[in-house]
C-alpha cells in the first residue's frame, strides 16, 4: 500500500516539467544555503563567481547546444549587463533595489541581443562566429573610447551593496548566522542562477525548446514543418543574451568594478569551453563547467605550491591544467561530461542506438 502511494506521489511531483524543475530548484536552494553557511568569506566570493559564470554558461549552452548557434561574443553581453548595473549603482547606489537593477541590466542586454541575433540569424556557422568575435573585441573598446561615460580603462567602481534588513532577518531566522556583504552577494548570485535555470529548463522542455532543436538539426525540414526559423534563432539569441546580461550584473557587484579588462576575449572563450566541458545543451553540464572555470585554477595553483613549485611556476600550471582537461574531454568524451553519461544511458535503454554526436555546427541542410 505504502509503495503505491509513494509511487503516485512521485508521479504527481514529477508530472510536468515545471514541477520537476521547481523540485530541483528547492533541492538546489537547500544545498546552496548549507554550503554558503558553512564556508568562509573567501569561498563565498568564489561561489558568487561560480554563480555568475554558471548563469552565463547556462544561457550559452541553450544557444549553442539547443539551437546550434555559436557565439564567441558572450563576454560582450556580460559587459552590457555589467556596465548597465554600474551606471545605475555608481550614481545612485541606493535608488533602486538590487533585483530591480539586475532586471534592468537584463533588459538592456535583451535589446543588444535582439540586434545581434537578427544579424546572426542571417548568417551561418563560421560567419556567426566571426560576427560575434567582432562583438567581443568591439564592446570593451567602446567602453574605453567613451571614457567620460564608462570610466575609460579604469572603469566604473561600484560600492559594496548593503544587505537589506529583511534578508538578514530571514537568513538569521533560518540558520542563526549573520549575513555579511559577500555572503549576500553569493546568495543573490545563486538565487539568480536557480531562477534562471528553472526558466531555461521550462523553455527547453516546452514547444520553444523543441523548435530550437528542430532548427539546429535541420533548418530546411523545420521550415517546411511550419517553424519560422529566423524567429526561432533570434529568440534563442535573445534568451541567451539575457542570461549573459544577468551574469554581468552579478559579476560587477561581486568584483565591484566594471572595466574593459574584465571582458576580454578570454572571458568569451572561457564560457564556450565551459559549455563544451559540461556538454552542449545541458544545464547541469553548464554548472559543472562553471565550477571548473572557478575552482580549477586555484586548486591547481595550490597543488603546485604544495609540491614545492615557486609562486610563478604554480600560477603557470593552472592554464596548462585547464588546457589539458579540455583536450582530454574533447578526446575521450566529445559529448561533454554530462552528454557522455546521457549517451551511455540512452545506449543502455536501446542497445543499437548510436552515440549522439554533439557538433558545434549544425549539419548541412538536406535540400534536394
Amino acid at each position: 500500500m505504502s509503495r503505491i502511494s509513494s509511487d503516485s506521489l512521485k508521479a504527481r511531483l514529477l508530472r510536468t516539467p515545471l514541477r520537476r524543475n521547481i523540485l530541483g530548484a528547492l533541492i538546489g536552494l537547500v544545498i546552496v544555503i548549507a554550503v554558503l553557511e558553512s564556508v568562509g568569506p573567501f569561498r563565498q566570493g568564489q561561489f558568487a563567481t561560480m554563480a555568475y559564470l554558471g548563469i552565463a554558461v547556462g544561457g550559452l549552452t541553450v544557444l549553442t547546444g539547443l539551437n546550434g548557434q555559436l557565439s564567441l561574443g558572450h563576454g560582450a553581453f556580460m559587459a552590457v549587463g555589467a556596465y548597465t548595473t554600474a551606471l545605475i549603482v555608481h550614481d545612485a547606489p541606493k535608488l533602486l533595489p538590487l533585483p530591480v537593477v539586475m532586471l534592468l541590466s537584463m533588459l538592456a542586454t535583451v535589446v543588444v541581443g535582439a540586434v545581434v541575433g537578427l544579424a546572426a540569424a542571417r548568417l551561418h556557422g563560421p560567419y556567426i562566429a566571426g560576427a560575434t568575435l567582432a562583438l567581443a573585441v568591439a564592446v570593451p573598446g567602446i567602453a574605453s573610447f567613451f571614457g567620460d561615460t564608462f570610466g575609460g580603462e579604469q572603469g566604473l567602481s561600484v560600492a559594496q551593496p548593503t544587505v537589506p534588513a529583511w534578508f538578514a532577518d530571514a537568513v538569521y531566522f533560518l540558520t542563526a548566522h549573520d549575513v555579511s556583504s559577500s555572503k549576500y552577494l553569493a546568495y543573490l548570485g545563486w538565487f539568480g542562477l536557480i531562477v534562471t535555470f528553472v526558466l531555461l529548463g521550462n523553455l527547453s522542455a516546452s514547444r520553444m525548446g523543441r523548435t530550437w532543436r528542430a532548427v539546429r538539426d535541420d533548418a530546411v525540414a523545420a521550415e517546411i514543418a511550419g517553424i519560422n526559423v529566423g524567429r526561432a534563432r533570434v529568440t534563442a539569441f535573445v534568451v541567451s543574451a539575457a542570461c549573459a546580461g544577468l551574469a554581468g550584473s552579478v559579476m560587477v557587484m561581486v568584483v565591484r568594478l566594471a572595466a574593459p579588462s574584465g571582458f576580454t576575449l578570454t572571458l568569451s572563450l572561457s564560457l564556450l569551453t565551459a559549455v563544451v566541458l559540461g556538454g552542449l545543451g545541458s544545464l547541469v553540464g553548464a554548472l559543472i563547467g562553471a565550477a571548473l572555470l572557478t575552482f580549477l585554477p586555484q586548486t591547481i595553483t595550490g597543488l603546485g605550491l604544495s609540491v614545492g613549485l615557486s609562486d610563478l611556476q604554480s600560477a603557470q600550471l593552472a592554464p596548462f591544467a585547464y588546457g589539458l582537461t579540455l583536450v582530454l574531454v574533447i578526446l575521450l568524451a566529445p559529448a561533454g561530461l554530462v552528454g557522455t553519461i546521457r549517451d551511455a544511458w540512452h545506449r543502455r535503454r536501446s542497445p543499437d542506438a548510436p552515440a549522439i554526436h554533439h557538433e558545434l555546427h549544425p549539419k548541412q541542410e538536406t535540400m534536394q
Partner: protein
Amino acid sequence: MTPPARSNHAGPVFEMSDVAVSFGGIHALSDVSLAVAPNHVLGVIGPNGAGKTTLFNVACGFVQPNTGTLHRSGALLTRLQPHQLAGLGISRTLQGLGLFDRMTVLENVMVGADRHAGAGFFSGLLGLPQSSKEEAALRGRATAVLNELHIEQYAARFPASLPYPIRKRVALARALASEPELLLLDEPASGLSSDEMSELGELIRGLVDRMAVMLVEHHMDLVMSVCDHIVVLDFGRVIASGGPNEIRENPAVLAAYLGNEVDDESARLARTGS
C-alpha cells in the same frame, strides 16, 4: 488548439496558373498550370531535369515564381514563406528525409504537429498549465499518427538507429501530423521494396479521405495505380495531362521518355503503353 481550417470552397484545393521560373537564363518551368482536386491524388512525372523538384519547391514556397499565380482553395497566395504555407495546410516530405537526428521519433513527429500549437514563449518559459496541456495534446496527436503508420514501437528511438524504410515512414508521419489539406510527397517510394511500395500505395489511397495529395515519383507502377490525374513535365513544360490511361497512351509522353533517356522505368512505361 485550432482545428485545421476546412474551407467550403468547392473548386481545387491547390492551383498553379501559368507559373514560370528561371534560374539565370535557364527556364526551369514555363507556363505550368495544374490543379489538385479535393480528395484526389495528382501525380507529377517526367524525365530527369524536367522541373518536377522546382515545381514542388514553388508549391511549398522555397522558390518564388517569376510569373504566374498560386491559389489555395480559391485564395491567392503571394510571396509566402514555406513556414507560412505549412501553417495554411500545405505539408511536404523531402527526398533527403531531413529528420531531426538528435530528437526522438516522437519529437520529430511532434514538430510536424506544431501548427496546431498556440502556446507562446512566455507560457513555455513559466511552465504554465496551458503549455503542458498543449504538449500532452501534441504528444497524443503524434502518437496517433505513429499508430496509423504502425511505427509506434519506435517512438523513443533516434532516427539514425532505424532502417531506411522506417525512417521514410517517420518523415511521412511528420508531414501527416500537421493534418494538411495538401500533402506533397517527393519520391516516397525510392529505396523501398516492391512489397513496401504496394503497402505505400494503399496508404496513399487511404489518405485521400482526409486530404489532397501531390506526388512526384519515378516508379510508374505506383504512379499509375494511385493517381487520379497525372501531369507530365518535359523541359519545364506540361506536355500532357490526364488520367492514367490517357497518359499511358499519349504519344508525346512516350516520345519524351524514349527520346531523352531510356531507363528501366521509361522502358516499362513504353511496354505498358504499347
